[in-house]
């Protein structure tokens, strides 16, 4: 059963997807569904014996292009809609034991090109209003498959966190005539204490308002709204800065660093969002080598994060692990 249910208290949609309770959970390596199918071996999701990067529809989707009828009736208060959308899996590499951080910068450049193509393709679908590209990495985040992969959710509405950013960006533009994120990037670069690394096209920083100790944002130096606006050189610069940041994360505690990585782009609903600015956000749950940050009462119940660290100090730590990767 799968449907969208309206939360009138928050003014937000949520998806129910009961089939996901039965999804594959941390299978042994020999039965990884994201590995290539070896000749005569266990048939995985990917029939080919080799591939560069593969994208396929999730076997356990929360959104579908042909969704079932809702299993519950709507009321005047509780709206219910079919769960239109797409849920794709993006497999970064055939190498089961790799991570995005361990992949060469050339492979990350390929991934940027695939992300761009998926953004373009999914944006064309009539029922898609927002294309959300993300990666959940590590058991600390709750991943069910360890093979390096990300996901794409194509929503039939603009999700609330992005909607809030859009509204703040629109208000700032009306008030000042400027782009909010351009101003944030300018302030971070002028201050400098929270900048981790930058290249010609992108800058990585732990923002002044970071909620997690190692929350890191990557913003385009150019005022751009989505991946499709980047040149080949900018795509390579994005791959290079991603490699720098991911390797620095792994070096922090000498572990394969868990994180959520999300791409914030303009919606695909046909409206004008030229006031918005492309960026990537990382939310790593580790606050020390042995401790995790949990979303507890204040964070979950009140929506106010408490950061036990200073962004300036954490950015300095990460800067110490930055290595230069170039094409």
């Amino acid at each position: 059963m799968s449907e969208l249910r309206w939360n009138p208290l928050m003014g937000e949609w949520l998806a129910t997807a009961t089939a996901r309770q039965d999804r594959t959970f941390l299978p042994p390596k020999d039965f990884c569904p994201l590995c290539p199918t070896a000749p005569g071996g266990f048939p995985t999701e990917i029939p080919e014996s080799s591939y560069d990067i593969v994208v396929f529809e999730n076997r356990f989707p929360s959104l579908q292009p042909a969704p079932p009828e809702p299993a519950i009736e709507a009321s005047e208060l509780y709206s219910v809609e079919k769960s239109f959308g797409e849920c794709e899996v993006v497999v970064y590499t055939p190498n089961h034991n790799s991570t995005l951080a361990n992949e060469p910068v050339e492979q990350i450049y390929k991934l940027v090109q695939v992300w761009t193509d998926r953004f373009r393709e999914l944006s064309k679908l009539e029922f898609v209003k927002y294309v959300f590209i993300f990666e959940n990495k590590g058991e600390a985040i709750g991943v069910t498959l360890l093979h390096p992969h990300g996901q794409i959710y194509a929503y039939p509405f603009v999700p609330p966190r992005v909607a809030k950013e859009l509204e703040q960006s629109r208000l700032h533009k009306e008030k000042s005539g400027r782009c909010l994120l351009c101003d944030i990037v300018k302030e971070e670069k002028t201050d400098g204490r929270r900048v981790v690394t930058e290249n010609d096209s992108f800058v990585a920083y732990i923002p002044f308002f970071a909620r997690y100790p190692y929350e890191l944002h990557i913003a385009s130096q150019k005022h751009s709204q989505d991946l499709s606006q980047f040149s080949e050189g900018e795509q390579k610069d994005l791959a290079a800065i991603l490699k720098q940041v991911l390797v620095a994360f792994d070096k922090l505690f000498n572990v394969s660093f868990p994180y959520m990585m999300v791409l914030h782009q303009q919606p695909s609903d046909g409206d004008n969002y030229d006031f918005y600015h492309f960026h990537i956000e990382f939310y790593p749950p580790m606050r020390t080598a042995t401790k995790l940050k949990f979303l507890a009462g204040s964070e979950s119940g009140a929506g106010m994060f408490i950061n036990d660290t200073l962004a300036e100090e954490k950015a300095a730590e990460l800067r110490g692990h930055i290595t230069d990767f170039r094409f």
Partner: protein
Amino acid sequence: MKKRREMMADERRYIVYYTFKRAEEVPKKSEEKENV
């Protein structure tokens, strides 16, 4: 970049294979040096 779209074994879902030309595979030799 080339892509090939097929239906999966369950005939309900699509799969897209992305492949890259040799020249795209290694645009330039990757250079790695420590930042000081």
